[in-house]
């Protein structure tokens, strides 16, 4: 692997930057592997990296039906935070946040992790009570989160309109200063490059179409559009398509797939210093380093695999943005797109073994799994390597729905990003 440093930049500059090599090999599928990951998003690529790095399992393939990072990893609004309500969630998301804090160094790849602070606005009494409860619960769990008055919120984000005479006035806010954003593509590419350097094969344009099993039901490998590939361990990290892939092994999961949209404005000078989220009126926004305002909208009301959403959903979000930030009223939107998110009944993920021997699943991240990428990948690799969960993901089973041990962030967060 060509390492990035000031010195290597200088050296390649002298050679007119002609000496850079592709950052990962264009691998061809081998007949078999020690482990296969289905899905080349951040979670899948990261899991392959940690399998190789932490567990020494380097004979690994990541199979991606399109291009790596072309799923939700490359479509999300990149908000990262860990101020979730329940103990299990705080442990999971803060594990990820701690890994984010060292990720660029770990991968020798700038993932542009920026801890600019995530501020969540309260617009009614219910919001205030819920957010204060979060602040207290988070502090007990050692996760930073603080309560701000409307004036303090405006000080933190000067464009914010705190006029009390609007439809949804800002009554206060919860701020996690360690939260922020990262560059989504860089996360996929950084993990791909680091995994490749450890021997992992990253195979694009390779759709898994079946899961082959032996007479006892254990996994033997996967059928793909590029032929059969053998492995006794298959980890599925296919986000919105998890139900489709797991259906190939007759495993039914408590998931439904919905379109979720985002949009960006024309690029402007730095004007928006943080991330602002409003669950009640459903809008969230940050500014990318290119200068675009990155805006997240809601899900459509129906399940779908179309990777696009209704225009009225985005319109609703823009109306909210215009009220909260009147100065953006005349800004033009450049692009909008959708991704398919896999939602569980309790809005918490599943990172677990399955009833099928050798088959593992990491799914159910729904509308909010980008922030968890390093953590989920690390824990999923552990689960696959050891054939048992890490203590942090032990509660995130499939069976929790049967046994009534849900981690109900649905009720706690109302919206999850």
């Amino acid at each position, binding site marked *: 692997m060509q390492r990035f440093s000031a010195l290597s930049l200088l050296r390649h500059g002298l050679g007119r930057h002609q000496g850079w090599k592709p950052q990962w090999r264009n691998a061809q599928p081998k007949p078999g592997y020690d482990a296969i990951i289905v899905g080349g998003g951040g979670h899948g690529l990261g899991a392959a990296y940690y399998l190789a790095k932490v567990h020494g399992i380097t004979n690994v393939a990541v199979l991606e039906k399109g291009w790596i990072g072309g799923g939700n990893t490359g479509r999300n609004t990149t908000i990262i935070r860990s101020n979730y309500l329940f103990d299990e969630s705080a442990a999971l998301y803060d594990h990820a946040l701690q890994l984010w804090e060292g990720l660029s160094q770990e991968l020798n790849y700038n993932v542009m992790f920026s801890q600019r602070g995530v501020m969540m606005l309260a617009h009614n009494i219910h919001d205030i009570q819920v957010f204060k409860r979060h602040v207290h619960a988070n502090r007990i769990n050692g996760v930073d989160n603080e309560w701000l008055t409307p004036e303090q919120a405006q000080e933190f984000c000067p464009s914010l309109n705190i006029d009390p005479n609007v439809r949804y006035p800002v009554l206060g806010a919860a701020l996690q200063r360690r939260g922020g954003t990262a560059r989504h593509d860089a996360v996929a590419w950084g993990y791909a490059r680091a995994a490749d350097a450890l021997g992992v094969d990253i195979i694009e344009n390779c759709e898994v179409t079946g899961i082959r099993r032996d007479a006892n039901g254990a996994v033997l490998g996967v059928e793909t559009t590029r032929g059969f590939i053998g492995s006794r361990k298959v980890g599925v990290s296919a986000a919105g398509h998890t*139900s489709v892939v797991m259906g190939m092994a007759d495993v039914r999961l*408590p998931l*439904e*797939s919905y379109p979720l949209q985002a949009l960006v404005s024309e690029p402007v000078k730095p004007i928006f210093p943080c991330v602002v989220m409003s669950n009640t009126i459903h809008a969230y926004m940050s500014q990318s380093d290119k200068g675009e305002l990155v805006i997240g909208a809601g899900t459509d009301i*129906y*399940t*779908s695999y*179309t990777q696009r959403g*209704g225009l009225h959903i985005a319109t609703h979000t823009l109306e909210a943005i215009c009220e909260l930030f009147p100065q953006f009223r005349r800004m033009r939107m450049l692009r909008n797109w959708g991704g398919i998110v896999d939602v569980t009944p309790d809005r918490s993920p599943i990172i677990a073994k399955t009833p099928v021997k050798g088959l593992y699943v990491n799914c159910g991240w729904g509308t909010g799994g980008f922030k968890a990428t390093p953590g989920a990948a690390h824990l999923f690799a552990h689960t696959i390597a050891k054939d048992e969960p890490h203590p942090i993901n032990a509660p995130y089973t499939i069976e929790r729905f*049967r046994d009534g041990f849900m981690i109900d962030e649905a009720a706690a967060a109302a919206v999850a990003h």
Partner: protein
Amino acid sequence: MLIINCPYCGARPELEFAYGGQAHIDRPVQPADLNDEDWTGYLYLRENTKGIHAERWRHLHGCARFFNALRDTRTDHFLATYKVGEKAPEVTRP
């Protein structure tokens, strides 16, 4: 925005409707006889089909009645809508 054909009122914009999830899930007749696995299936497991999906809709801001629909989740194309209690019509893929 989808245009949805309410079997009672005709074609109307999606904004008038509420979505009700997968159709034809029968409430258990003898709830006490269900074991935990059956309850999980009834409460939480859904087909999440990529393809033709039978689902419930409610014309909330119209006649307010429930009805069922067949929709292709790969395209969001509606193949049929039909009244509650009726069997799903036979459809051919578009």
